[in-house]
């Protein structure tokens, strides 16, 4: 094909030369064009020779080395409660004093929250492997380490290892991909900082329909002590998620989830969740996302059943490539449990207001100003409103994969 083109060009140039009015200049230009065409053809042939026969290999960033990224999260923080008092906070009915794990942003002034190594690699034609090694200042934690299948038929995929459950909307997300620096109150209250993150197996199926429908089941060890805690493998999670687009720009994602497990005393504990996310795309770099989630736990304790639940709802507006602003409201809406230990303390209206302003100079770095007015905690035996302002810096250096929706 290219040859034909060249031939016709030659023919064309000789014709042009016959015309006397056309000066040498024009001829020279055509010669230059021909030379350039030949040069680019040589370039192309060279490139073709260099490229391997397998034309479908992609995304590989280092021949066989895994993609490795370092994620670093640090903060400067101010809080109107002393560190020693804050670390012993209680949330009535959920977290007893001294029982709160605070791995991120625990202290006033500076916090090195973590340095995380995120590793991803295709293993072979059948598996992909992922590991997230979370390093706190004095410990190394395997946040997640799992494999997923890539070759199962009919829309199935199996994940095995230690992983964050796909329960609800937020459970699966890593801290650095949250829209706010503090964990949603109901997740913190029911599951603790790592949410449902456990060893086990997950089976997911995507329906072959025009509308996105995904169903998943998981069997997990059940080591989450806040809601479960019996370590005979006994935690079962199931969920159904679906999404529709309305027009080009509005997409709606909803899900229902359930987790059934046992407490340390071998009594039943169930958590249910519903979530809804609406996203309006306003441009390439601008969007409005409204995300809400409600979780409820039914936990058998001796002869009665504790019924507790709460929600968060958040609105995040990205107004240009570099800036976002967001607000979130957290609330415990149901707290039917034994609150006799808090006699004389107001245990109603547990809630928190959060606002944030984010600056992302580049997709790999983020500075965020996060303010929260927290009315959910008991400090030193009395309800106390807590105000926290922090500036966090998060970077992802290296080969860090894109985040899912």
């Amino acid at each position: 094909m290219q040859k034909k083109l060249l031939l016709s060009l030659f023919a064309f140039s000789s014709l042009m030369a016959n015309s006397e009015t056309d000066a040498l200049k024009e001829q020279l230009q055509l010669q230059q064009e021909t030379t350039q065409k030949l040069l680019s053809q040589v370039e192309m042939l060279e490139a073709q020779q260099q490229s391997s026969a397998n034309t479908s290999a992609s995304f590989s960033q280092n021949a066989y080395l895994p993609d490795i990224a370092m994620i670093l999260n640090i903060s400067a923080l101010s809080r109107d409660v002393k560190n020693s008092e804050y670390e012993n906070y209680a949330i009535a009915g959920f977290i007893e004093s001294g029982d709160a794990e605070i791995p991120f942003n625990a202290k006033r002034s500076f916090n090195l929250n973590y340095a995380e190594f995120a590793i991803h690699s295709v293993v072979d034609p059948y598996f992909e492997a992922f590991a997230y090694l979370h390093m706190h200042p004095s410990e190394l934690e395997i946040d997640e380490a799992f494999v997923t299948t890539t070759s199962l038929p009919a829309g199935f995929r199996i994940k095995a290892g230690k992983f964050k459950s796909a329960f609800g909307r937020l459970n699966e997300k890593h801290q650095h991909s949250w829209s706010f620096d503090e964990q949603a109150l109901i997740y913190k209250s029911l599951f603790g900082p790592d949410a449902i993150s456990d060893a086990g197996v997950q089976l997911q199926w995507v329906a072959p329909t025009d509308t996105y429908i995904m169903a998943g089941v998981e069997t997990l060890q059940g080591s989450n002590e806040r809601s479960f805690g019996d370590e005979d493998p006994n935690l079962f999670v199931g969920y159904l998620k679906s999404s529709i687009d309305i027009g080009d720009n509005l997409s709606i994602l909803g899900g229902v989830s359930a987790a059934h497990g046992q407490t340390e005393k071998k009594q039943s504990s169930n958590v249910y969740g519903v979530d809804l996310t609406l996203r309006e795309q306003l441009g390439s770099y601008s969007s409005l996302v409204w995300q809400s989630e409600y979780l409820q736990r039914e936990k058998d304790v001796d002869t009665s059943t504790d019924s507790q639940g709460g929600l968060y709802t958040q609105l995040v507006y990205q107004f240009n490539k570099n800036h976002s602003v967001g607000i979130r409201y957290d609330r415990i809406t149901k707290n039917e449990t034994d609150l006799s230990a808090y006699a004389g303390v107001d245990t109603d209206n547990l809630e928190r207001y959060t606002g944030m302003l984010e600056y992302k100079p580049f997709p790999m770095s983020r500075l965020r100003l996060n303010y929260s007015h927290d009315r959910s905690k008991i400090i030193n035996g009395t309800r106390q409103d807590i105000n926290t302002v922090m500036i966090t810096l998060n970077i992802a250096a290296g080969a860090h994969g894109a985040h899912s929706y």
Partner: protein
Amino acid sequence: MKKIVLITLVVTTALFASLRVDTTYSTLGAITKRVGGDLVNVTVLGSSKYDPHFIVPKPSLLSKLRRADLLIMNGGGIELGWLPPLIQNAHNRNIQNGAKGLLDISHFIPMIDKPSTVSRAFGDVHAEGNPHYTTDPHLVPIIAKAIAEKLMQLDSENADIYQKNLDAFTQKWQEYLKGYDAGLRSCRGKKVVQYHELYNYFLKRYGVESIGNIEPLPGIAPSSKHTLALLMKMKKDGVKTILQDIYHEKKTAKFIAAKTDAQVVVVPHDVGAVKGSETLEKFYNTIAEKICQ
């Protein structure tokens, strides 16, 4: 409910005994339609309204990928920010990395602007070179051939038809290019600036000189210092045309235009990005018209 779903499935399969092909962008989709004809059912994932680097990986795209027989991608790193998680979560073994149903067109393209060193200190540079090759109409036959060969491999029963389509399309395209190139001869030597290096393949092909970019580094928003330097350079070199894409902010280009008497032209980066660029020919005609008017 289940029965209805199953019945719909059976009916859909019977009605469209064709290949389901997803393409990441619209120009690739338009070329696929030309060589695939009625035998392929083409879905474009990334709307040409948006920055191709920042397509939102919304869940509806998962259901599109779930049933694809073939995924045709641009490659060159441009989809790195949105496509991998979609492939991971669509649970479709046909289109996994390394599978027969994933076609990365960049492997067929003589990529230009390959950086000798790669670091994010230089912004969003792609190690494989400039990925915006679809602005050069001379690469269309290469793309069409790559796609046709893949379709022949996946649907060998209809190989003859794909070959015929490809031959007819290629011949038509060469005819089209003759006229196209002739029309652009006067454009050689023209100087322009662009927002992002979106049009380098076209500019290089037709001898148009790009003397600078509005963004200081790829993917980095304009700074006043850089804008002023660009202004000076444009004045010195007598640049009168600023190439603006549809998705970046236009404020900076307008500011520069006002200071230099240059003209801002909005050039499509993909089929359908601006009005009147809905077909392949119209798309390339619009590019030529806007850049060389």
